[in-house]
């Protein structure tokens, strides 16, 4: 008698089903013991129609969809808890699968995929953000989906270009940091496939898909920028950049030199009075001069650029500190919850602490950090250089990791916020590192087995 298809499916995917079950149990345990808290950034996402020009609509739209169904079905008046529920049980579970999928593709090993999926769920630094009302969890979801579907373009999968483009646009509308990710992905693809491009026939095979991916990104960016132009008289995705740069210039605001631009100087005086604090400066410009948000951001941007240009050394001096904050390792963002949560989940907390100790040791030591983020990935690239599909994915993952680092560190110097900016690529950093160790270990193991076999 033929085995039922369902049993066949369950048999083939037993490991993944087991992993998702473990992920679900962990989240049930955590969800019962947390109280959603609001951060000053969270309040800017709660009401989509109140969207500020510094914000992009991705996360507020996600919240709005959840609340739409809540309003329609009268599910619960615990709005924040509902958002966290979806972040944990929808996004968290999906992210578990995405980490498994990326890990499996990178190492061609289901077992390693399951291991990384489990590691993801025991990494409290990452999953702790699932119960915070911030964009990090959703950002990782869209980032991983973009990478998976972008890779699928080169597997010849129909529709992959459309989905990769769509998720790339949704990603940058959730996190403007990823505005130029599509350029990075296309550039890296060009580098990896350079020989094929030169040989010829490459664009016949992939040109249409890559053009679709590029076009969707440009249309997405252009549409949102046009909306901002019509609403705020500003053609761009977000007004946030001058405020982010302000976290650098606030350290040497007093070096602002008057006299070179009379129009700018009238605002420069206020900039000095407010000690270079970007939001205080913006508040005064909008109340005293009645300037709209786009104009204020433009002025702040000009002042920041002028300060950085004229005091480039001061700016450069602070970049290592921003980098150090970016690669710090702490549970700062979940501290208020930990005190309540950990006594209730003693066994799970032990695993959380174990992985914290391991990863903190890796990230807080400069030598180990360089090994984890640079040396091992570079060596891994050399190892799988001949495996073009895996090598391409590895280059894309590394590209995303370093792109996020450069954008976050060069544009913002804001202590624990820099730490938070690393979160969407943290699972990728770990999967590359552990993927390399696994690949070398597997290779060594098979060589040992071969040697034993030949000796017999």
């Amino acid at each position, binding site marked *: 008698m033929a085995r039922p298809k369902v049993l066949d499916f369950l048999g083939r995917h037993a490991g993944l089903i087991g992993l998702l079950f473990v992920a679900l149990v962990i989240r049930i345990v955590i969800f019962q013991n947390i109280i959603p808290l*609001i951060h000053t950034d969270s*309040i800017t996402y709660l009401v989509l129609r109140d969207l500020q020009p510094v914000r992009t609509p991705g996360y507020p739209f996600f919240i709005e969809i959840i*609340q739409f169904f*809540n*309003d*329609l*079905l009268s599910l619960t*008046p615990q709005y*924040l808890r509902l958002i966290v529920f979806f972040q944990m049980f929808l996004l968290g579970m999906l992210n578990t699968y995405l980490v498994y999928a990326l890990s499996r593709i990178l190492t061609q090993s289901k077992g390693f995929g399951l291991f990384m999926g489990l590691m993801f769920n025991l990494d409290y630094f990452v999953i702790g953000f699932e119960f915070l009302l911030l964009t990090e969890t959703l950002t990782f979801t869209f980032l991983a989906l973009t990478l998976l579907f972008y890779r699928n373009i080169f597997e010849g999968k129909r529709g992959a270009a459309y989905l990769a483009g769509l998720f790339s646009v949704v990603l940058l509308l959730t996190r403007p940091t990823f505005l130029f990710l599509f350029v990075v992905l296309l550039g890296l693809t060009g580098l990896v496939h350079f020989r094929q491009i030169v040989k010829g026939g490459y664009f016949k095979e992939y040109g249409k898909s890559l053009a679709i991916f590029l076009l969707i990104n440009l249309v997405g960016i252009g549409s949102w920028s046009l909306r901002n132009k019509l609403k705020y008289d500003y053609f761009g995705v977000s007004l946030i950049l001058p405020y982010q740069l302000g976290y650098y210039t606030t350290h040497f605001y007093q070096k602002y030199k008057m006299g070179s631009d009379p129009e700018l100087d009238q605002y420069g005086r206020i900039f000095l009075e407010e000690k270079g604090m970007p939001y205080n400066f913006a508040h005064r410009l909008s109340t005293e001069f009645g300037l709209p948000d786009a104009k204020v951001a433009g002025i702040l941007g000009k002042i920041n650029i002028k300060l950085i240009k004229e005091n480039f050394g001061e700016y450069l001096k602070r970049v290592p500190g921003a980098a150090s904050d970016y690669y710090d390792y702490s549970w700062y963002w979940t501290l208020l919850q930990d005190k309540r949560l950990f006594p209730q989940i003693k066994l799970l907390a032990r695993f959380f602490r174990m992985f914290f100790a391991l990863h903190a040791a890796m990230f807080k030591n400069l030598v180990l950090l360089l090994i984890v983020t640079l040396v091992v990935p570079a060596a891994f690239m050399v190892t799988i250089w001949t495996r073009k599909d895996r090598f391409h994915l590895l280059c894309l993952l590394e590209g995303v990791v370093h792109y996020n680092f450069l954008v976050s560190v060069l544009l913002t110097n804001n202590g624990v916020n820099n730490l938070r900016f690393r979160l969407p690529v943290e699972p990728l950093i770990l999967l590359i590192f552990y993927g390399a160790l696994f690949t070398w270990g597997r290779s060594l193991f098979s060589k040992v087995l071969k040697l034993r076999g030949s000796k017999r």
Partner: protein
Amino acid sequence: MRKAWIVCLVFLFAVTGGLYFLRRESYFLNKNVRLVSMRIFEYQELSLHRRLKYKIEFLQDRYRIYVLAPSPEETWKEVKEIRYEDGIETNLLGFAFEIQKGRIISYEFSGDRSSIRRQVVLGFFAPKNPLKQSGILFHRDGTWRALKR
């Protein structure tokens, strides 16, 4: 597989659209309470972060948010005026509360500061169907919660 996706999406839209038409009144009542609640969260957090005092005042068809200007003025300046959704009205005209350091510190009824007994319900209803109500429950100690409809 593609057909299955399309069928699922069409089905989802159809069901959502049907529910919207059947439960339109409840939807807007819930949405109204939700938006008011989210804005209370917002101004509680802002009062903590910016160290300012805010006041939210509920009128028949709208509510206003004020900020207390710093000294020497010490007057209430209007920050925002928001209409309730879909013609909804409130049953507690002139109800207001002040927010400071992240919590509600006092209540007012038509400009009169008074303490409430134990709790008060700020109710919302659609004039076409005033029996259907939704609201927010405020306690004397400044805590509050949205009520399930």
